[in-house]
């Protein structure tokens, strides 16, 4: 937690509110929360979902990326209480516990993970990209992950991992289409 994080002040009147969010297909109760809390804060600190990372807290770094009603957003810039009724999907919801998605596996295989801090945000962004554009060119990939800041890798292996998944998915589709 950084200093400027939205720490709830529970001393005044009217401060605690309860509401429900839909996270990874499950209804989750958020009890006694300050309404100014970001979705990122609520995911991490109230709902035990620390996969979405908190780095800049101001929309710059993408490490908090989640899907909201099918759209990729920075959860640090969304008020959790304004996400009631929205379908929120976090990195935890991508694959059943203990398994990896093809994107996660490709990141590992390509050696695209160093300290790992930026990786959950990148994984969510790359899933979003490949859902929209199954065979992205390099510019599309760069555009999609621009704003996912990584301080370790220099991005080369990340770009490689994305192309690997795209190629593997295309090959798998071709296999399926074969009579």
């Amino acid at each position, binding site marked *: 937690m950084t200093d400027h994080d939205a720490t709830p002040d529970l001393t005044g009147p009217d401060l605690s509110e309860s509401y429900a969010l839909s996270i990874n297909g499950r209804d989750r109760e958020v009890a006694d929360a300050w309404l100014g809390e970001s979705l990122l804060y609520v995911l991490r600190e109230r709902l035990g979902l620390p996969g979405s990372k908190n780095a800049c807290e101001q929309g710059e770094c993408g490490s908090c990326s989640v899907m909201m009603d099918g759209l990729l957003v920075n959860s640090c810039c969304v008020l959790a209480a*304004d996400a009631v009724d929205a379908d929120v999907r976090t990195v935890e919801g991508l694959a059943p516990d203990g398994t990896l998605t093809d994107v996660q596996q490709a990141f590992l295989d390509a050696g695209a993970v160093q300290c790992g801090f930026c990786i959950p945000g990148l994984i969510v962004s790359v899933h979003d990209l490949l859902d929209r554009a199954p065979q992205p060119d390099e510019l599309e990939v760069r555009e999609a992950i621009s704003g996912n800041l990584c301080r370790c890798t220099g991005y080369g292996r990340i770009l490689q991992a994305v192309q690997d998944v795209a190629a593997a998915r295309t090959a798998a589709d071709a296999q399926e289409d074969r009579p």
Partner: protein
Amino acid sequence: MSSGFTIEEPRSVDEALTLLAQGDETVRAIAGGTGLSLLMKYGFFEPATLVSLRHLRSSLADIEVTPDGGVRLGAMATLRDLEDAPIVAERLPLLRQALGRLATVRLRNAAQLGGAIAHGHPQMDTPPVLLALDAQVQVASIRGARTIAAQDMFLGYYETAVEDDELILEVRIPPQGEHRATYRKITARAEDDWPMLGIAALVATDGGRISRARVALGALTDRPMRLPDVESALQGSDPGSDEVEAIARDAAAALDLYDKPAASAAYQRHIVAVHLRRALLEILDLGDGSSKGGR
């Protein structure tokens, strides 16, 4: 420190306008939240009530061509909706070009057109573009509806002509006719940074002559500005590259700028001269000017 407040979720524009009409500037609309939630986080803004626009979106996000050939943009369309809309690509390529480099996909998926106006941050990309397109912003309150020209909209840091009780409902762009336009975004650090300078330039042509010219700069001072001298120098003329260079140089020299942490006034003037020249060369089809290097 953070205090208690409420979030209202009106189901109709009338309901939202009634909520906003409390004569309290801490009762505020929230659209994508990308601007407002950060102001709250930093403690710059403490709401009494946030009026969430999320349930109004479906009715106020349309993008359509108007009978006169202009375009109507619903204020609750996200920046991404606008970027992806075929009508925008076809009729307002200038807007599309500017949106393509506005922050990141994550931001554009959340931020709405109304927010991108009412936020009133001087370093945004949309204001100079809306100025160049002669945009008319339709707002409403329980007192009635009115139209604010983009030209009169931006008044300074986080200050716009939209009153506390007003909601932006739509933006109308008049027909642009046969035209060429470009947006040049200059960032000081990363590619997806806020602009340190945004130049929106547009020329409409009629039989080879420039019938209308619009040149607007954003991010230099506390508000975007049109450059009337440049516009009148272009209008009715057919300038060559030397004239364009002189026009850009004179315009930059005449700007009233101040030193900023990221750039001195002299540096900003230099950047304007270089990029205004390139923008004009591009829309006048005189090459993009980059062969002259950093001049």
